[in-house]
């Protein structure tokens, strides 16, 4: 299992487009469970609606947890996306 914490610098936080890009990234790793936590809520990163429902905005901190055969690769892809300001 790998776990990492990110601070959202993107002006829109986890609004529809960044959240959609995140879900699409996670879909590239079918056998891996990816969970996102903000505060005391943790949701599946495969569900756009759940990710949106976190209400994560600019400046918020989220914790991502990956578990499964491609956990490392999934985390690397997510880190690239989030730290790159969702530029993909």
């Amino acid at each position, binding site marked *: 299992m790998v776990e990492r914490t990110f601070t959202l610098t*993107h*002006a*829109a*936080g986890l*609004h*529809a*487009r*960044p959240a*959609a890009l995140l*879900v*699409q990234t996670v879909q590239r790793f079918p056998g891996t469970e990816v969970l996102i936590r903000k505060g005391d809520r943790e949701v*599946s990163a*495969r*569900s*756009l*609606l*759940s990710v*949106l*429902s976190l*209400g994560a*905005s*600019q400046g918020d901190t989220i914790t991502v947890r990956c578990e499964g055969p491609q956990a490392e690769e999934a985390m690397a892809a997510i880190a690239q996306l989030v730290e790159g300001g*969702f*530029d993909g």
Partner: protein
Amino acid sequence: MAERVLRGVAAAAGLALGPVWVHQGDAPAPAASSAAGDPGAERRRFQEAVAAVDRDLERLQAGADPQAREILGAHRLMLADPELHNLVEAGIARGLGAEAAVQEATEQLAALLAGLDDPYLRERAADVRDVGRRLVAALAGRAVGLRLEAPAVVVARDLAPTDTIGVDRRLLLGIVTEQGGPTSHTAILARSWGIPAVVGVPGVLEQVQDGMTVAVDGDAGAVVLEPAPETVQRLEERLRAQAEARAREQAEAGLPAETPDGRRVELAGNAKVPGDVAAAVERGAEAIGLLRSEFLFMGRSAPPDEEEQYQAYAEALRLAGGRRVIIRTLDIGGDKGVPYLGLPREENPFLGVRALRLCFRRPDLFQTQLRALLRAGVHGRLAVMFPMVSTLDDLRQARAALEEARAALAAAGIPHALAPEVGIMIEVPSAALIAHHLAREVDFFSIGTNDLVQYTLAVDRGHPELTGLYQPSHPAVLRLIDEVVRAAHGAGKWVGVCGEMAGDPLGALLLLGLGVDELSMSPPALPAVRRLVRAVPFREAEALARQALACSTAAEVEALVRPVLERVAAG
């Protein structure tokens, strides 16, 4: 049944007469009729509906513009959302039918989003409900979205963007909605498509059924249900007159806007979205004098990236077919709803961080837009215009930013326009008064009379109690315009006007007389202004403008100009 007249808000001009097509977009689904079969069968029905809706959305996505594509993409992700599927399956396992389970699940998820603090995310609740509606429609075997089979007047509660993507607009005679105001999606769409529309008609859905004859009067804001034979006859006469007027306008659209004594002005169209360019060209616009770029930035979660902007600007340039298109860089401030920019509330948004002032503080936004503009410039005749210039430094800083974008593109070997025309809006009195300095460093001016009038007379254009003080023909405004025209011509540059004043016959006549070279207006105003220019000799307009400059009140100016307009109207 007898003829009935319902009142609403006039949203798009024109008259339409035809059979009703009720669009049940967001009508509640017949949950009771979905007698729950065995859970296995209900589960299969749900899976089939998901697949059908996904195919539909995929097809719509292929033909949509970039912004609509993004909305539809998000809808497809919601459709495939494991959380949605879990909730629906749980509902079915509890003995619900597929319809009821979908309704319950989407309502629950929508409520979750609707409870968030973030206003943008709250609005996404509507997207979830939209997906739910599509699923319920598919379960009932009904078509989703607006699918007209014959010419009709569409009556709906409201039309969502996804309803109108892919609709055949030749079949859309008119639109009537129960909800919505003059700035709703339906109203904006109807105006840009030139389809008569009346919105905000309470209770209309209860009073119509498919095939009922209905008339839509988009000028008066009235809807006539089952018009009596005499009424139909009267309406048909008006329809004939409307068709004749349109045909005449079309015939005249190709005529040059030249006064009887040979003064030529350029008549251009204002556009809010690239699609408006086609409507302007159809009405004889010789150029696009103002394409606002705000459409790309409004009503969304994050700023558009360079590629999306490039595609939109390129589309506008292609639609203009070689005519000049002046694209104005982002003109937005704290008063507009763009939550993702995180703009603080200001005491005086019109005197605050807006337009160029915002762009200078957000080089990321500005460079992305300028790069996209320059790249799009290879597809047509691009002119770049900066809004809200109040000092010479503003202009220089904006030009430096443009040069930075150009140099970066050149260094990266990306094709781009090498030397587009660069101009500025003159909408702040300070800019008008130093226009002779500014003129040396631009290719053109475009006077934004809406803001110039506001800033000159210190009156909010939309203020309900001060409408009488908003006076475009006030001598103070005219003298500023006169100053700008002289400054531009003195430096050998051209000057246009892109405010409402250019499309109003009284204003247009004064502007013609003041020596303005280009008048840019909303396309429906073009035919009347063209007729005016072709009827009034320039030397008469010029003499009139000189007299107007010497007036002491707007009322005096209007008293001076009205008789000339009346003479022209009388033919």
